């Protein structure tokens, strides 16, 4: 049961990462559409902007 769940998660992540083009579950058909991919790519880019590139020893925050 747990192994199957892990397999499913792995295949979903592979699909999201572009490793596989086969949709892991039929119930995730909506992930095939351009609306999903456009949103997903934008979320990834925004996450990169928000979480990477900090170069100072500590972030000086003016509270």
């Amino acid at each position, binding site marked *: 049961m747990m192994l199957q769940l892990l397999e499913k998660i792995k295949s979903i992540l592979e699909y999201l990462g572009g490793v596989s083009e086969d949709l892991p579950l039929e119930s995730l058909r909506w992930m095939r559409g351009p609306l999903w*991919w*456009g*949103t997903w790519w*934008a979320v990834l880019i925004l996450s990169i*902007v928000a979480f990477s*590139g900090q170069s100072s020893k500590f*972030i000086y925050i003016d509270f």
Partner: protein
Amino acid sequence: MTRRTVLIASALSVLILVAANLLVGRAASNSVPRQRMRTIDSAGPVIDVLGIGNSLMATGFDPDTVERTFRASGRPIIALNAGLGATNPLEHLILARHALRQHSVKQLIYGFFDQQLSDDVPLKNSDLIGNHAMLYYAEPQLAVRYAQFSWMDLVAFQTYRCCAMFQERGNIWAKVEKMRRAMASVGMPRQATNQFGRPEDFDLLEFVSPEEFSKRCRDVMRAGTFLSPPIQGLFQEANAKGVKITVVEMPMHPWHVKTFYDLPAWEEFRRLNRQAVERSGAAYLDASHWIPEETKFQDHIHLGPSGAAQFSRMLAERLIQAAPSGVTARR
């Protein structure tokens, strides 16, 4: 994935990023540098005493106390604190120009510590986060002139200027950092914070040893570069407008004074630094020992409210003594 899917998805991504860019720009419309510039804008036509500097000045210069002290001597004035935390002389030059453009400034108080007047570190585009981000939108031509960018940093600087999401990335990072700190504090004893964050973080800004501090003093003395180009620019701008400049060696924590300012190298550095300041037409005021009580500091660098009030009162008294009738302006 079909070609059509890729095209539509790409267009949607761009649309979402443009919307995010607008949102970040809107969220940053009240950023600290913009607030400071609005404070300057909202002052009357005459500013009698204008405080400029980094966070030492932002926390240490109390305009209400300065005004009260002047008023008590029968001379009402307008004092304004344009100090901005985590900034360098380049940002101070821009803020001073901003004030001088719109107001008649009688006296400019420039607060500094350590070798700040001579620090002329070449900037990289990646350094321009937090309050340094003002270099993207407030007189960017000065950043290009003084920052000594490499050509790659220059290209990055000009590119980042067009996008609020890049310009104000420090604001996003600050929010992420606050979230990280909130998550890290779950189940932990409460950490002390002040206006600028965790006090112990500011220990990182101190020199690692008295030897390092003395070496930096000696390096500057050897090179003879006591006043960095942005500081020289600031003094020239003020002198051209007939503004009296007083450079103040800001009160420092007793630990800092004992560890660094009592060193022979600093004594020699201070003497030459003062001469360089006075040669450029400014007065020099050593206030580094004015606040000997640790309790009047909120961390190793910044004065607390009571220390700021004491420093500002003493500063105002000195200004009154130095210019018995010159500083005030009738409104």
